């Protein structure tokens, strides 16, 4: 079960908008970290994802395990939030 979801985004990122849309359709709430407004959190996004890209979606389960999905990838995102 999902405890929390955090998405790292930028203002101009269309795929970030798609992740948000998908989570809205699935009725999930999420925290958005906008890296244009908070560039100091880029290092955090990079260390979680291992990639210099957005969106980075971090799904934290009730057992505090985390799954990190890089990019707009429904094949990974769908089972992670199920």
């Amino acid at each position, binding site marked *: 079960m999902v405890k929390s979801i955090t998405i790292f985004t*930028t203002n*101009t*990122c*269309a*795929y*970030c*908008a*798609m992740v948000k*849309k*998908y989570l809205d*359709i699935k009725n999930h709430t999420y925290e958005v970290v906008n*890296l*244009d407004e908070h*560039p100091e959190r*880029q290092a955090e996004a*990079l260390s979680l994802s*291992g*990639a*210099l*890209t*957005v969106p980075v979606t971090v799904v934290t389960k009730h057992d505090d395990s985390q799954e990190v999905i*890089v*990019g*707009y990838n*429904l094949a990974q995102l769908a089972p992670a939030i199920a």
Partner: protein
Amino acid sequence: MVGAGPAALTASIYTTREDIETLLFERGAIGGLAAVTDKVDNYPGFPDGIEGLTLADNLHKQAERFGAVIELGEVTGITDEGEYKRLETTSGEMLAKAVLIATGCDYKKIGVRGEADYYAHGVHYCATCDGAFYRDKRLVVIGGGNSAFQESIFLTRFASHIDILVRSRVRASDVLQEEMKKYIKQNKVTIHTNVTIDEIVGVNGSVDKVLTTNSSSGEKKEFKTDGVFVFVGLMPNSQFLAGSDVALDDMGFVKTGEHMQTSMPGVFAAGDIRSGSTMQIASAVGEGSTAALIIREYLDGKLMPKSESSREVKAPQ
């Protein structure tokens, strides 16, 4: 409709306003390549240009306002069953009386050593997505067309310097070349022509330099960089049509007749996926609306006007 870029979104505005039940499938960003383009200056009606993401968002809202439904998923096959077409999708099998293929294109890869290894670790294809990671860093942009120039201009917001590597000569529009001059004068951008990319090399898991050869002098040159953005052209999203009865040309674009129809009756194509398309948002929008009106005629059981160059489309009896 397969795809929800400008062609399909426009077509769906027309079909839904005619009360034709319309479902669009989109596996990527709604708005297609327009959504990942920084700024669009040549789409009519916007004298100061418009951000691609905003234009995409507006098209999306307008389509949904009239009742278009967009499914986030993928169509993996189409077969002709006479009155209906059967579509295999990630949401299961579906039947449709008419289909519009509007899957557009995606950005090509160069195909050099190191490119795949460093994807998202220094090699990128989307400036609006990933440019922000390169504040005050050096960048290389590979490509010499409109996308390479437009997205390089966007990247100047972040990068300390951009080397644009062009395979032969610059093909970007005069307007973009003129706009680029300002950044060249500021030493933010340097353009290098006749550059063949040999390899993208990294150190400790990150991109470090691009190795090149000058195609006219043979001189080898290294470009030190923190990141590489690639804009070397477009390839059609037609893999799902392989083996189907929808005919493709040699490059993988969908062949159409005079009235946007493909070789499969009841299946039409519009936008960048169409063979002969001019690859512009304005063209895609025009083709989308044209296709929608033709689809309406088709669904109403009306025959297409005959002409020497067109195939007659017969609606099911």
